[in-house]
């Protein structure tokens, strides 16, 4: 069953202004982990937000979880994680994770149980009473992930969630994210700048190029599951990284050719 179906999606900003994305066709199945990768300005974040009905497409159709994107948002079919953890300073960790549950009208008992479950999932069990400013960047992102998953959405949208963290924390959180993905059984759409991260995490990598933003290639990643630290050292891993890199370069060349043609 497809969780996300995009048909002919385009988006222009302003009257006759920049084309962020054009002619996007993409299908994402249940339990997939799909990464969107490309240079700045290729529209990957815009595309993510179109899926989440945070931006309206100029044309095309977006079907999320069998409904329109708007219905999916209103019925809370997805959770979103940004590069900035966007935690509320005036709420401690427990209350931050509980936020969407409060909005959904869950009872206090149910909220408490679920929040505890989530904190165990992201391994922050002892930090319920802490405030965001007392946590490191990596821990704040884990709270953000816990919050996004708290109401058990079938879809998880992530916009460069580990972009602001150091390499080691990033690799560790990658492993944790895969574990969480497996345990929760959700579908993940993941925007990233890092080729290695995209290849390590995904079942498929969608390579995009800019001007206008479009999909140049979709590369299936058949590396064995579950992936571990060892996976990063496999020859097949390097081959796939190279393949993605080449697809990115191809996209950039097409870009340049188009720019020269139009002057």
């Amino acid at each position, binding site marked *: 069953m497809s969780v996300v179906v995009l048909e002919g999606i385009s988006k222009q900003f302003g009257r006759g202004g920049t084309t962020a994305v054009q002619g996007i066709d993409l299908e994402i199945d249940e339990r997939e982990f799909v990464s969107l990768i490309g240079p700045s300005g290729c529209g990957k974040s815009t595309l993510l937000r179109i899926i989440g*009905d945070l931006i309206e497409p100029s044309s095309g159709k977006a079907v999320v979880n069998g409904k329109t994107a708007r219905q999916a948002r209103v019925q809370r079919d997805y959770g979103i994680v*940004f590069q*900035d953890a966007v935690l509320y300073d005036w709420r*401690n960790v427990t209350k931050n994770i509980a936020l969407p549950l409060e909005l*959904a009208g869950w009872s206090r008992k149910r909220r408490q149980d679920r929040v505890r479950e989530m904190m165990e999932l992201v391994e922050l069990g002892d930090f319920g009473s802490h*405030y965001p400013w007392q946590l490191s960047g990596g821990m704040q992102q884990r709270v953000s992930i816990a919050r996004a998953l708290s109401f058990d959405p079938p879809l998880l949208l992530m916009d460069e969630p580990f972009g602001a963290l150091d390499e080691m924390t990033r690799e560790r959180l990658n492993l944790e994210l895969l574990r969480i993905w497996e345990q929760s059984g959700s579908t993940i759409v993941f925007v990233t700048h890092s080729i290695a991260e995209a290849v390590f995490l995904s079942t498929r990598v969608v390579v995009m190029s800019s001007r206008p933003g479009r999909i140049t290639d979709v590369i299936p990643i058949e590396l064995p599951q579950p992936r571990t630290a060892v996976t990063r050292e496999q020859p097949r891993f390097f081959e796939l990284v190279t393949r993605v890199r080449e697809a990115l370069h191809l996209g950039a060349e097409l870009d340049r050719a188009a720019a020269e043609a139009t002057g």
Partner: protein
Amino acid sequence: MSTPVAVQPLPRGRVARLVGRRLRDWIPALVVLVVVLVGWQEAYRVLAIKQFLLPKPSAIGSTFWDNRSELLHAGWLTFQEAVGGFAIGSGLGILVALALARWRFVGRAMMPYAIAANAVPIIAFAPIANAWFGDFSKASKIAIAAVLCFFPVMVNTLRGLTSVKPQSLELMRSYAAGEVEIFRRVRIPTALPFMFTALKVASVLAMIGAIVAEYFGGSFSDLGTLIRSQYQVFAYEDAWAGILVACAFGIAFYLAIGLLERLVLRWQPSTSE
């Protein structure tokens, strides 16, 4: 695997958090106060400041003590006017800020007018307020104090309400949260620090507004008229005693708001002045 990195400990001691800073931090100010008082007391010996203009602290102190009930009563009366004006002006300011944040289009159009209105010397309006409400009534003083408080509170609260990060709003939209929910859970908590800063400023302005309004016609038992009448009979020590009472009430009001701020904003790592 998940040993935490860089976690700040929860601050110990509820009193410490309440006061906001340790008592030790107040010592330099106390030292300065003592030095100034002693210097003032002895200054007339060194400088040629006329005693009658700037009496010794001891003289002011004894004058205050002699007239303390009258002075405190007058101060209390003026203080009531200030609090009344503060409540009305700040309350209206907050309400208007909420409305302007909700209907941003109106706010953006009206902003230059609000800024211009803020530049108008309200003080010039005091005699008219007295004409409206009668010279001896409290209402005119409350009105002036209220107008003085309205703008700083409105502008700063509005600023706080609209300084929410766009990603925070996206997050709320992803939860399909309505405008009311967004206000309740995001905008208002974000605005609280801004609001309290403005309330502290307003507390001082309210007192000053009340006294200036009294100058144009107050009942004979409020502080402004009292001080004025002391001047007319050249009783400078009494006038100074009155001034210091006004000061004391103003400072007390300011500190009370500051205390309220610390109670409400408990979650902040450091409440900035």
